[in-house]
């Protein structure tokens, strides 16, 4: 195996970041240039959104349930077991709903986009598309970005809701709490900042999932091995970037929204 110098490696990484930035910029710019492929957007929304629904529902439900279970142990020591609803709702809406949904969608779709587009690159289908007069960025990348951002927004809301139901199931069946009290507690504890934070995050994460998946796919080189490498890289990069951006966005929103 050939060793690569640290300088070259650093240059390569900086160049990749620069290429990704330009790629993302072009993806957004294509929204304002004709043609816009609405049919492809709807098809992708179906594949990404509807196709991811089962894993999002399952993840949301079990996360909410385990959150209620873990919280009950601590809250019981302080005699505040009735606050389970509040803890589940704020945790799910602010953080776990958007982040876990995004990670699940990244695992399913970022890698899927990278492998699909990567296969098209190595079998010259992307070149064929360009040769036939179609811009692959407009036809393949922008619709995936729009569809992921749009659908992840709603998937995160569904995940939040199902998470609350999961918490309710534990509260009612194991902790013997009153369902009405749980809902009232969960609902009243939420403030505008919580909901805003919970809704802005999936939009940012959706953009990351689609652009990272498409970026690695469109830059896949070296046959089937290259496609496999692109698929893995896309999933890892998207997951890490989601968690890093989560920290940055949370800190930024807490500072700007005069959080309590």
């Amino acid at each position, binding site marked *: 195996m050939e060793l690569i110098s640290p300088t070259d490696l650093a240059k390569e990484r900086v160049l990749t970041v620069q290429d990704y930035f330009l790629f993302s910029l072009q993806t957004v710019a294509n929204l304002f240039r004709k043609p816009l492929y609405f049919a492809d957007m709807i098809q992708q929304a179906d594949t990404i959104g509807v196709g991811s629904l089962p894993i999002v529902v399952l993840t949301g439900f079990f996360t909410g349930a385990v959150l209620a279970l873990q919280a009950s142990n601590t809250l019981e020591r302080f005699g505040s077991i009735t606050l389970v609803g509040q803890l589940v709702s704020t945790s799910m809406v602010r953080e776990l709903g958007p982040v876990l949904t995004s990670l699940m969608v990244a695992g399913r779709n970022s890698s899927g986009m990278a492998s699909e587009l990567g296969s098209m690159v190595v*079998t*010259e*289908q992307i*070149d*064929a598309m360009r*040769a*036939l*007069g*179609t811009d692959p960025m407009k036809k393949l990348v922008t619709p995936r970005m729009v569809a992921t951002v749009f659908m992840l927004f709603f998937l995160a809301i569904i995940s939040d809701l199902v998470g609350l139901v999961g918490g309710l199931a534990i509260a009612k069946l194991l902790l013997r709490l009153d369902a009405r009290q749980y809902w009232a507690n969960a609902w009243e504890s939420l403030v505008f900042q919580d909901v805003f934070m919970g809704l802005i995050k999936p939009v940012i994460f959706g953009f990351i999932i689609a652009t990272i998946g498409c970026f690695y796919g469109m830059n896949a080189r070296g046959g089937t091995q290259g496609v496999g490498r692109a698929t893995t890289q896309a999933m890892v990069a998207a997951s890490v970037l989601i968690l890093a951006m989560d920290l940055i966005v949370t800190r930024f929103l807490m500072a700007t929204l005069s959080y309590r």
Partner: protein
Amino acid sequence: MSAPTVPLDSATAPTNDISAPVIVFEDVVMSFGDNEVLRGVSFHLPRGETKAVFGVAGSGKSLILKLALGLIRPDSGRIVVLGEDVTQMPEEQLFALRGKIGMVFQESALFDSLTVRENVAYRLMEEHGVYDEDIDRRVREALRFVELEHTLDLNPSELSGGMRRRVAIARAIITQPELLLYDSPTGGLDPVTSNTIIELIVKQRDVNKTSALLVTHRLQDAFTMATHQFDKQTNRMIALPPGQHCDVPMSFLVLRDGKVIFDGDLHNLAQSQDEYIQEYIS
């Protein structure tokens, strides 16, 4: 034999000028890292002619097609295609130019998520404003040309290698382009299927008078093209007597070490004293 040079001013004349060459390469240099693949390649393709490009693997034959299509930009030199300098054009303008060019890729490059009908109709569907009935009629016409009308609703994965190449030809010719680029259209095919593909290329050349650049490593295919003509009466390719070979609009280009070492017709190729060419054609 060196390649004849064509003044670029005449090459960049309007595309309706029938005397202007359809492709002009002028001192084109292209490298990948330290590997200089093309070292000052110059040639031109007159309108209505088919030029076969030869060379060993890695000599840059397929690269010439991608450069002509503007899919890759050269390091230096100029490439004029249908009167437009593709080395200077932004990608947006290249899409319009590519509408006048058909390309058949080495491994067909059919879209595997689309049916044969959708693959062949792709360019028409992208154009918008073309009615479904018109698309259907033209798809059937193109598939009839390659004798694959019955494959309309099949997926590319259900076709054999030879059938995929023929569908790729149908996709390339559906808009009756002014220029066709073939990248090893018979590569990896059995002799019978290869002959079918060559017959289709000759048919396109002689019936529609389309200019073409054909990359191949199969000398016998290019010799067949240079010695045969398509007969519309019998709908078959027929061999011409030796005296009439010069009537066939066919020429040869041989690449070696990134340079053009031969550019001429069949007669010149057979008479060439160059040792490499003699060894190549033997």
